[in-house]
């Protein structure tokens, strides 16, 4: 099998194109983030969620109906008969009571009793050691074998719609991400190194771009498109990192990226960690970890109810699993350790005033294209 590592491939004419600022020694490669969602680990349901009590859409609907007074039998009949619509749906949605008035559960989740959904009790989850004090709460990262903080996975990992094996995305995030891709400005990543073929120091710059991501003819995010970096400093992050054995990691740092509804409106990670590898096809895949505001997470999941996931159950689980930044008054942890999975495709990055600051580095060889007589269809 041809062994093409993109890091070893010589940059094609892209690097010689007009306008590229070709620094004396360093090379800057550009990417846009084509896929971003919760890092999932789903190979072991039996051990991760032994109670298997969360169920799917029907089950949590039944729980909700019971909580407003229906018997189990009635709730089952209604939920499975698809009769929860109109006024009944409205009633469920407004079952929180605040100051004597019925209000939306999605706006006032604290006013709804904790449905106590099952949380992950398995051993494995992707992540990083963020310095969490509770050793017992750590997972083991299946790639690195190290102990990691990922309470977010603990909270949501037994919810069916979040149990997606890559390249599939957790359903609520997938729907939101796809909507965002079509309309909202994307995120860029620039990696600068002296020599991508050797171990050494790298700089990673994260930004927002002014344009939304482009799709290609196969429905994926297009490679080697050009994007203009949004000059606003708000989403500008410069991270120090290291390339070692084909994997890039960073010195922990806070990251802030603005996004848009219906996705997470902001991706703010405190004490962010990263590990990223370059695939043979020139694309990046990796993990980001850090502390994420529990309310910010919950806002996303409760603002699009019904997109898979018992939003209220998740809200409460996240609240319980949150493991950092206690509120001085209430003691409630306001941040939760989290890990995110990221993919990126090569892109040219330019500035608003016309400079090309990063190249899209595509692999030299396209995959082989031959027929097999016995292949299906």
């Amino acid at each position, binding site marked *: 099998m041809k062994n093409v590592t993109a890091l070893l491939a010589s940059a094609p004419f*892209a690097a010689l194109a007009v306008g590229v600022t070709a620094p004396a020694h360093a090379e800057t490669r550009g990417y846009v983030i084509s896929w971003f969602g919760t890092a999932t680990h789903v190979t072991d349901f039996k051990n991760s969620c032994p109670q298997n009590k969360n169920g799917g859409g029907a089950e949590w609907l039944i729980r909700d109906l019971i909580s407003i007074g229906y018997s189990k039998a009635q709730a089952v009949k209604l939920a499975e008969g698809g009769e929860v619509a109109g006024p009944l749906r409205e009633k469920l949605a407004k079952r929180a009571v605040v100051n004597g008035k019925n209000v939306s559960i999605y706006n006032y989740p604290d006013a709804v009793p904790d449905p106590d959904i099952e949380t992950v009790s398995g051993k494995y989850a992707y992540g990083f050691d963020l310095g969490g004090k509770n050793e017992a709460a750590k997972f083991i990262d299946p790639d690195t074998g190290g102990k990691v903080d990922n309470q977010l996975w603990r909270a949501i990992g037994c919810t069916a719609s979040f149990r997606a094996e890559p390249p599939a995305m957790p359903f609520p995030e997938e729907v939101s991400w796809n909507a965002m891709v079509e309309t909202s400005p994307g995120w860029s990543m620039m990696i600068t190194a002296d020599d991508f073929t050797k171990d050494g120091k790298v700089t990673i710059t994260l930004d927002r771009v002014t344009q939304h991501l482009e799709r290609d003819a196969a429905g994926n995010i297009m490679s080697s498109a050009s994007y203009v970096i949004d000059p606003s400093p708000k989403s500008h992050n410069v991270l120090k990192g290291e390339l070692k054995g084909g994997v890039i990691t960073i010195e922990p740092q806070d990251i802030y990226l603005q996004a848009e509804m219906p996705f997470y409106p902001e991706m703010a990670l405190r004490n962010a960690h990263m590990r990223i590898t370059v695939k043979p096809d020139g694309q990046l895949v990796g993990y980001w970890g850090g502390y994420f505001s529990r309310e910010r997470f919950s806002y996303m999941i409760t603002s699009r109810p019904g997109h898979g996931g018992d939003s209220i159950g998740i809200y409460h689980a996240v609240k319980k699993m949150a493991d950092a930044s206690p509120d001085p008054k209430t003691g409630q942890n306001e941040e939760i350790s989290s890990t995110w999975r990221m993919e990126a495709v090569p892109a040219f990055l330019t500035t608003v005033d016309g400079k090309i600051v990063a190249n899209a580095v595509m692999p030299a060889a396209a995959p082989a*294209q031959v027929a097999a007589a016995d292949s299906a269809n």
Partner: protein
Amino acid sequence: MKARSNIAGAVAAAALLSASLASVQTQAASSAPTSSGEPLSWRLGPSQYRQTIAEVFGPSISITGRFDPEYRQDGLLTIGARTASISSSGIERYDELAENVAAQIVDRRHRDTLIPCKPQTPAANDDACARQFLSAAGRLLYRRALAEEEISLSVRIAGEVAKAKQDFYTGLAAALSNMLLSPNFLYVYKTFEPDPDEKGKLRLDGYSKASVLSFFLWNAPPDDSLLSAAENGEIHTQKGLKRQVDRMLASPSLEHGVRAFFADMLGFSEFETLAKDPTFYPRFTPRVIDQAQEQTLRTIVDLLVVRQGDYRDLYTTPDTFLTRSLAALYGVPIVDTTDNGQPERWIPYKYGADDPRAGILSHASFVALHSPSGRSSPTDRGKALREYLLCQAVPSPPADVSFAVVQDTNHPVHKTARERLSAHATDAACSGCHKITDPIGLALENFDTAGGYRTTENGAPIDTSGELNGTRFDGPVGLTKALHDDPALTACVATRAIAYASGRTPGRSDAELKRIQAEFGKKKYNFVELLREVSLSDALFKVPPSAAQLVTAAQ
């Protein structure tokens, strides 16, 4: 029985038809019958139809129907249009188009602007207003003044329908729809009259000259000024003709004509069926297909019309125009600060010195267009270059060739196209023709079938050495330079220009062709000057021998 005599008659007629057209290979899988005379008229092409409606009734009339397909002959669709008939499914489509266009013209949005008069009562016919509109519109649509009986017929139809439907505008639309379906509109005719300057000889009448000229230079019907020049005889004088030609070459409408000419000559009709496998070539999106044509046409207009440059430089120029989607396809960076979600802009782009993507050969409109959907074909590209750019016919493959020698693509040795085609080059039965095409296409193998740039294929480096008419070179830059210097390049576009304008391809030794080719060279291959030369040449308004038998229209 009726059926029997029809068959016998048809068979007999077919046997009488002469067997061959002019001696050039046709490219399409055939079309129309051969004919016992020289076809002088041509069927209006889709872009000519659209341009006509836009010129006569304005750009807000939308044309959403489909047309009968065009056929290529002697390298041009406009020559294929000379023998094209209108099929029965075609007439259904033209009828639908006609009704649709007519309905828009009389609708409330358009009627006040487009119809210069108002009926006395809208619920009844009004012959005077109908006459005023239909004779004016008819003159522009039929490209000549209407005869009285034609106007009366049209007015009568408008009146009958207006009475039946109790609506003036419905009546007008019916008469207009008929005009748009009439052969007087759908065909551009060449008709003749006695030449007052040369006794016993015929000349093309004024209206025919006007149509020939305006479709050549503007891809549009004659405007009012040109029709008047036909009517008052100015078009028959050298001075008058020159005045009109100068006017037309200086007009912004020249761009339409130049675009239409090159879209025909470069084979852009193949865009209709262009597709690439999205798994292998995901950057070749549907948007790219539209933009690929525009990229090349824009480049051509900029170099040849705006900058009045040397035709040969089209193949070596580093200048072009790109959009974000095209830049992504080609793998080059582009700065496009268009706001999020707005349509893509066209941005002038200049490749660096000696960049292999200089010239229009590297555009998707060449390397991707003349290339199959799965992988590139050097043979296809070489053939396209010969036939479209150099006017050189490539023979069909022979029958009963032994392919035992050709290895399959899974063979571990054959990774690149050059290796796969090596049998074409070494086997005597194949090499005769393939040496005409393959060495050209192999020099372009850095471009995959979608137009993206690559340096290896299946892991093996690509060798791009090649040869064109005896000149050897390495890589696409060498090819474009050899093409630039090949005399067949300029000879061919001059030949095509005359063929496009007159409907006949001149023979290689035709004296007028040689003269025009020489002038073209003297004028530094300025394409606008070539157009001027052809417009004023004898070739344009030539009277064919068969015209002598015609009963001509009395004015």
